[in-house]
């Protein structure tokens, strides 16, 4: 049986752990709100952008002159996987889930005989992937110094990816991130960004047919101008979703940890009280039997 002092120390240490997890939960909650606001604020842009792109893509269609960013290189031999994860841990299964999805994809692509290249954003994904696939790495983007995600950050990543594409380093690029549903649920998602696939809904199809836009300059010049921006926009959206997901995951992980610590304290306290009681009873028995012996 552990002695009283050990138990007391144990309780004190779990209590301070609970204090820390509680604080982390509150910080995550505050950050989550900000991250959600940022994601919310970026939505109108992304929505309008995608709508315009969809109608543009529908009208340019599969013509031979369509830009390579839209039409692709005609091959899918070399695949670039861009894995977006957090810079910090202690956020439940958030990083692991994204990495797991990416690993499944890597295995699938390798099985199909494709060449895989990996670009990571965020330290945690790099650490986890490096163990198995260090030979596939082509780069890493460090965002640990970034306090507030800006469009500029996404643009830099996009620029990096696009220049690799222009140099013919890969044919298809897919980004991996976690989509934010709610505090308790984040979906790891894979999204293909190059060649760009804009969902042509029936509505946008009809839109493209009915509204004959004038293009200034011509359609293809606009498309060529917009496609790189589309990549940046998609990455920006993914980064923001990821940020919100990370904070949400951390919040629920820390909430769990706080609750577990509470349970543990209760249990330890009961154990402590019992052993204290036992010690007292023992002492009493000793005194009484000592007195009786006299």
């Amino acid at each position, binding site marked *: 049986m552990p002695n009283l002092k050990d138990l007391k120390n144990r309780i004190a240490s779990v209590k301070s752990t609970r204090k820390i997890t509680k604080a982390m939960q509150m910080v995550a909650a505050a950050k989550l709100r900000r991250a959600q606001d940022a994601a919310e604020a970026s939505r109108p842009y992304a929505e309008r952008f995608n709508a315009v792109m969809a109608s*543009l893509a529908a009208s340019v269609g599969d013509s031979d002159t369509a830009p390579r960013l839209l039409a692709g290189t005609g091959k899918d031999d070399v695949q670039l996987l861009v894995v977006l994860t957090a810079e910090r841990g202690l956020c439940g299964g958030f990083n692991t889930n994204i990495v797991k999805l990416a690993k499944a994809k890597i295995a699938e692509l390798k099985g199909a005989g494709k060449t895989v290249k990996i670009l990571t954003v965020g330290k945690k994904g790099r650490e986890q992937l490096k163990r198995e696939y260090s030979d596939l790495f082509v780069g890493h983007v460090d965002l640990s110094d970034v306090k507030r995600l800006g469009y500029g950050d996404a643009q830099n990543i996009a620029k990096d990816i696009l220049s690799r594409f222009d140099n013919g380093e890969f044919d298809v690029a897919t980004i991996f991130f976690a989509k934010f549903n709610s505090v308790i649920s984040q979906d790891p998602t894979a999204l293909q960004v190059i060649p760009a696939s804009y969902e042509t809904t029936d509505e946008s199809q009809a839109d493209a047919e009915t*509204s004959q836009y004038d293009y200034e*300059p011509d359609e293809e010049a*606009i498309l060529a*101008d917009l496609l790189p*921006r589309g990549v940046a926009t998609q990455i920006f959206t993914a980064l923001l979703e990821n940020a919100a997901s990370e904070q949400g995951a951390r919040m629920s992980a820390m909430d769990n940890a706080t609750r577990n610590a509470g349970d543990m304290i209760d249990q330890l306290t009961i154990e402590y009280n019992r052993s204290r009681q036992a010690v007292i009873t023992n002492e009493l028995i000793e005194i009484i039997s000592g007195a009786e012996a006299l």
Partner: protein
Amino acid sequence: MADTMQFDLVSPERKLLSAQAKSVQIPGSEGDLTAMPNHAATITTLRPGVLTVETDKGTEKFVVTGGFAEIGETVSVLAEKALPAADVDQKTYEALVAEAHEAYKQTKVTFENEPGPVDDAAKLLQDMVAVGTHIGLDPMQPSL
């Protein structure tokens, strides 16, 4: 005939303005254009410039650095970076010009023998410099 139209100005980071507008003057890449209600449906890219919105409450000016505008029944401007003109002081402006200048220098190195992209970047830089005169700031002339 409607005399106002829905106008939205959004940047990737936030929505700057959503209002009923009488007219919107847009710095298109092929030249300025003014969109009024019932304008022909147009999509145009933007050059760095000043965007002027006329609403019932008066006119508002924004500095935009690029992006595109969609004119239909409603007008949406999707700017890469947009700032209310009143918020742009000499320092932010100089930072913008410096950024364009940096981009220009870089393009000059990357596309050494292709005049196309270099000219584009040079034009972008000039537009950026011209913005300064439009909003009454000291235009910073970078050495080319």
